[in-house]
């Protein structure tokens, strides 16, 4: 387990909610931010704020250096080979839309296939639905195994000569399942399809290496890994990005502008039209530095232990069903469940009145809810600042909810 003093880095955790000390178990939706990140943001606005790539003055230079320095931090974080491969976006959703709109529209035609799974987040479904509708391509879903995992056989079976894009989440935001991305990428490549990875839930918890994974695109969000909202990144292989057209046009992304035609800047700036999310990128880099100083492996280990402990404690609550892999070693820090006789919204309200924040609903995964045959679930998601006491409080809250609804 990590040193519980880590909690002191997160000022927000030191408060009472509805009369009880806050237990924050909704980090899969968005994580809390450490002082170290908040201070970097404050420093930037207090001393360095200026637009980037424009000014010749000192502040402009500082802002540009910090912004491009943040790109280098992300490159190292993903082990990309060049910082031309790192594009700052608003988050995972925008990044996936960029791939669908740019790579997709240029390379997909009628009858081509795009493969995703039943467990995908809406952000990794709808851009492909839209692409399929616009091009006449076929969107195919890979069914899940009974325990909520993806089998390589089913991936292989789904592939054909017409498969062009495979897009799969690394870690499920509902089931907590960790998917075998490296192996799936190999299968995709054997069929000349590209591999897109939604790493929104992986980046905060698992050390990523895009060269080792060999994926073609990978997207994540800053706000889930202790960074600010409104910033994320898209990694793409240089050769692919070079061949792609921007999807947003305007200032900053241009080279020469004529009256009726223009040319684009080189990578990565051709994809970053307008004033970019400067403070966001700098804040996200600070967050990456923060979690890397603690160590992604240590964070992953901490979550495994917490989840194993919480699942064990939750077993004692009668009528509680947990979805996804039984084996805590197979999941990231996410437990999704339902308590018999208590709707997840009611459950979330009872917990909230005890100071415990969990998510209830469909988690932007309606197809997966259908697959689980439920209309909604409750979800507790753990991160580096959670402790075994938090898990105990959750279990206590579940018991209370049961009593209320008996």
């Amino acid at each position, binding site marked *: 387990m990590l040193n519980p003093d880590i909690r002191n880095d997160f000022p927000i955790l030191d408060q009472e909610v509805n009369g009880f000390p806050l237990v924050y178990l909704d980090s899969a939706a968005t994580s809390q931010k450490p002082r170290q990140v908040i201070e970097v943001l404050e420093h930037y606005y207090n001393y360095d704020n200026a637009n980037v790539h424009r000014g010749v003055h000192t502040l402009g230079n500082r802002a540009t250096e910090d912004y491009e320095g943040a790109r280098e931090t992300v490159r190292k974080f993903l082990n990309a080979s060049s910082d031309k491969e790192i594009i700052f976006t608003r988050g995972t959703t925008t990044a996936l839309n960029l791939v669908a709109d740019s790579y997709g529209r240029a390379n997909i035609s009628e009858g081509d296939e795009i493969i995703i799974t039943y467990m995908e987040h809406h952000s990794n479904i709808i851009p492909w639905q839209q692409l399929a509708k616009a091009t006449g391509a076929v969107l195919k879903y890979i069914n899940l195994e009974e325990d909520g995992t993806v089998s390589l056989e089913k991936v292989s079976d789904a592939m054909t000569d017409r498969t062009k894009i495979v897009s799969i989440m690394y870690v499920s935001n509902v089931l907590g399942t960790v998917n075998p991305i490296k192996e799936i990428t190999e299968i995709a490549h054997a069929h000349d399809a590209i591999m897109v990875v939604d790493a929104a839930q992986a980046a905060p918890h698992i050390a990523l290496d895009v060269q080792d994974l060999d994926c073609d695109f990978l997207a994540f969000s800053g706000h889930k890994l202790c960074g600010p909202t409104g910033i994320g990144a898209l990694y793409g292989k240089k050769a692919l990005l070079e061949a792609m057209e921007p999807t947003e046009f305007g200032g900053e992304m241009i080279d020469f502008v004529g009256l009726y035609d223009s040319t684009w800047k080189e990578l990565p700036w051709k994809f970053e039209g307008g004033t970019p999310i400067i403070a966001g990128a700098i804040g996200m880099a600070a967050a990456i530095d923060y979690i890397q100083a603690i160590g992604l492996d240590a964070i992953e280990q901490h979550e495994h232990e917490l989840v194993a402990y919480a699942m064990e404690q939750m077993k004692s609550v009668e009528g509680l069903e947990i979805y996804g892999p039984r084996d805590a070693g197979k999941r990231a820090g996410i437990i999704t469940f339902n308590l018999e006789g208590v709707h997840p919204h009611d459950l979330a309200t009872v917990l909230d009145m005890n100071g415990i924040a969990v998510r*209830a609903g469909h988690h932007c995964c309606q197809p997966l809810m259908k697959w689980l045959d439920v209309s909604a679930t409750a979800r507790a998601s753990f991160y580096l600042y959670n402790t075994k006491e938090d898990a105990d409080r959750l279990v206590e809250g579940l018991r209370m909810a049961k009593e209320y*609804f008996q």
Partner: protein
Amino acid sequence: MKNEKLDQLYRSVIMDHYKTPRNKGVLDEGNVTIDMNNPTCGDVIHLTLQVEDDIVKDAKFEGEGCSISMASASMMTQLVKGKNTEDALHAAHAFSDMMLGKDVDDTVDFGDIEALTGVAKFPARIKCATLPWKAMEKGIAHDSE
């Protein structure tokens, strides 16, 4: 274990309607059907009304949702039965005001439904309570076009 705020929200009347909902099902003679959902949480309601000569003769609902939304649907169908459409729409407006914590029009006799006033203090749950009423409103407004 006791929690005062929770007791306010989950009054016994509400729990009773949740556990033994009135007017559950689908009307065979229904001439107005409305499906509505709350896209942010996945709650759904399927409401059938039998509206004749501007009178809501009967009402039934089916649905999937939390205690607040299902109890509210049960209570709404109770209230609306036998009312003329104008009064039913009026009640829907008044209910919506009640959920927003506004002064409630005292010409509407809500009876047990007043138990839902506690929801106003739980902003995240207001949509749960109003979903069935929105469905009723939509059904009647549509029928009278």
